């Protein structure tokens, strides 16, 4: 790893000062699991690394009357194990538990998980693509290897967002608390993420000098009917081919309200508003799910090797609404 200056502030204020001083030369390190790839591969060469692990204010889960607040530096394991999250917001626990591996969850943070960079193998390989400031997308070429790439909202770049907790947070209507040089700013989870059409070099809205400090989950969806599913090739330490998260308030069997999000289909986790509107007031059945699934994949454009993502997304959305039958065989 190239040498760098390491700063270990123990307050948000200090961290901000450091980030402002170093501007583009600074690199924020949370759990470090995304950072180390860039640094060890000698692709990114920050002069100053700001390690947030010493900042107490960024850690821990605070429970209040109207929901919970999770410090950005809270590890995924803490999130998964937290009794209140398990009881009321199990959707998030499920998503977080499917991320990477136990050791990574012990170190990786919720803030890092939602802010991590894409895993497009061309971009991560250091190829000078659009996302790296260049003028081409290597994955979206006649011979590009793009099995894991985007089917929706691709704009020059076809990378996808790798986060497993992001769709859960969107479904739970979470708010992200940002600390910018101008002061605190609160955005809806879905607005934290941006696609290549808006900014082809970043997956989120953080600008140099900004920090994600906490994630707030309102009690609106506490104990709602949840569904989370992640489909990956290996059963551990693998990124989602696609994942889906839904939260529904159902009375009788009628969907009163719903939030639905899919990740792995585009450069940002998608909130499927059209689907939400279409199924509201309808019964939470497979039939409704099938309709929703078809609607969800409208406008999807497959690349040479990722056409499977269309039926996959269709089926996952279907299950997120209609549920899935448990298969139990004797033996």
């Amino acid at each position, binding site marked *: 790893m190239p040498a760098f200056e390491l700063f270990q502030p123990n307050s948000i204020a200090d961290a901000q000062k450091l980030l402002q001083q170093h501007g583009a030369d600074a690199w924020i390190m949370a759990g470090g699991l995304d950072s180390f790839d860039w640094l060890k591969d000698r692709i990114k060469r920050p002069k100053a690394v700001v390690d947030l692990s010493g900042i107490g204010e960024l850690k821990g889960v605070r429970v209040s009357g109207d929901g919970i607040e999770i410090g950005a530096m809270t590890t995924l394991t803490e999130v998964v194990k937290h009794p209140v999250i398990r009881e009321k917001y199990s959707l998030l626990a499920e998503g977080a538990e499917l991320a990477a591996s136990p050791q990574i969850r012990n170190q990786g943070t919720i803030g890092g998980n939602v802010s991590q960079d894409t895993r497009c193998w061309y971009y991560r390989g250091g190829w000078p693509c659009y996302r790296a400031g260049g003028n081409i997308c*290597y994955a979206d070429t*006649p011979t590009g290897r793009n099995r894991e790439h985007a089917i929706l909202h691709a704009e020059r770049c076809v990378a996808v967002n790798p986060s497993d907790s992001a769709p859960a947070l969107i479904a739970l209507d979470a708010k992200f608390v940002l600390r910018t040089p101008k002061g605190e700013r609160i955005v809806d989870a879905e607005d934290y993420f941006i696609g290549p059409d808006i900014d082809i070099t970043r997956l989120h809205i953080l600008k140099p000098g900004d920090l994600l400090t906490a994630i707030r989950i309102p009690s609106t969806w506490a104990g709602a009917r949840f569904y989370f599913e992640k489909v990956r090739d290996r059963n551990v330490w693998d990124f989602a081919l696609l994942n889906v998260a839904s939260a529904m308030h159902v009375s009788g069997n009628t969907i009163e309200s719903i939030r639905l999000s899919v990740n792995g289909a585009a450069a940002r986790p998608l909130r499927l508003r059209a689907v939400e509107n279409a199924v509201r007031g309808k019964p939470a059945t497979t039939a409704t799910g099938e309709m929703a699934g078809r609607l969800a994949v409208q406008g999807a454009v497959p690349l040479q090797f990722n056409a499977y993502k269309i039926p996959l997304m269709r089926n996952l959305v279907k299950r997120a609404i209609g549920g899935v039958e448990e298969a139990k065989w004797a033996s």
Partner: protein
Amino acid sequence: MGILKPITEWATSPWGQNVPIHIAWFLIWVAALAGLLFLIVHSIYVRYFAKREEFAGSAPTTLAAVLPKQIPRHSLAARLFHWIMAGAMFTLLVTAFLPKVGVRFDWVTYHWIAGTVLTVSIIFHIIHASFWLDFWAIWPDKADLVDALRRVRRFMGRPAPPPRRFAKYPLENKLYHGAIIATGLSAIGTGVFMLFRVRTIFFTRNPYLFSDMTWGMMYVLHGLAGVGLIGLVMVHVYFAVRPEKLDITKSMIFGSMRREFYLTHYDPQRWRVEASGSPSRSEGD
């Protein structure tokens, strides 16, 4: 390549080769500043140093009687082309450079559509100008050069006969048109190929049409032409709003200019306008 280094950004290709990827974005500011500088210098010059315009001979008053009050200058077609082109050009510059200076929006679609519009309009213009208009009217001729020389000598207080009145287009106008041709065509020429790199309605993408190096150079040329146009457009707008040129600007809107303005600035020999208002063969652009 050496001269390119400071004004371009380079990257390492998958084959470990150093290739340019685009111009250095600071050139955007350089162009803007250059444009600004020009108009400041020019306005100061006009305000304090410029001598009153004198032309050889006096305006032929006899003509005034026979000529219509409004002298037709630009046909509708010509004006339409000009404004469509202007619109496209502005869209192109805005969509190209705002994102680079931090204003984030979905620019690519607008950019390539505007580019297509510009390309089509220019093709129209070339055909229109070659077959329906006086193609040579916009190119400098001997008289322009002689008069230019005279003006310079007189400005420097050297003895020289006063220049003749202008033909339809003064030399400056012709030179500007030339500059626009150079920058515009290189931007369009490269832009057309760049359409192969994004999803358009025209043809299937093929980013591997050229080598990494060729592509890089193409992006650099496109960028240089782009920033060049920033300056040129600024200058153009500046002249359009200068009081002494308002008549010309208006004519690009309404199609004709005041007879007086025509008689004081233009040489009826070089820009013939038929009496009784009916337009002459050299009408239009």
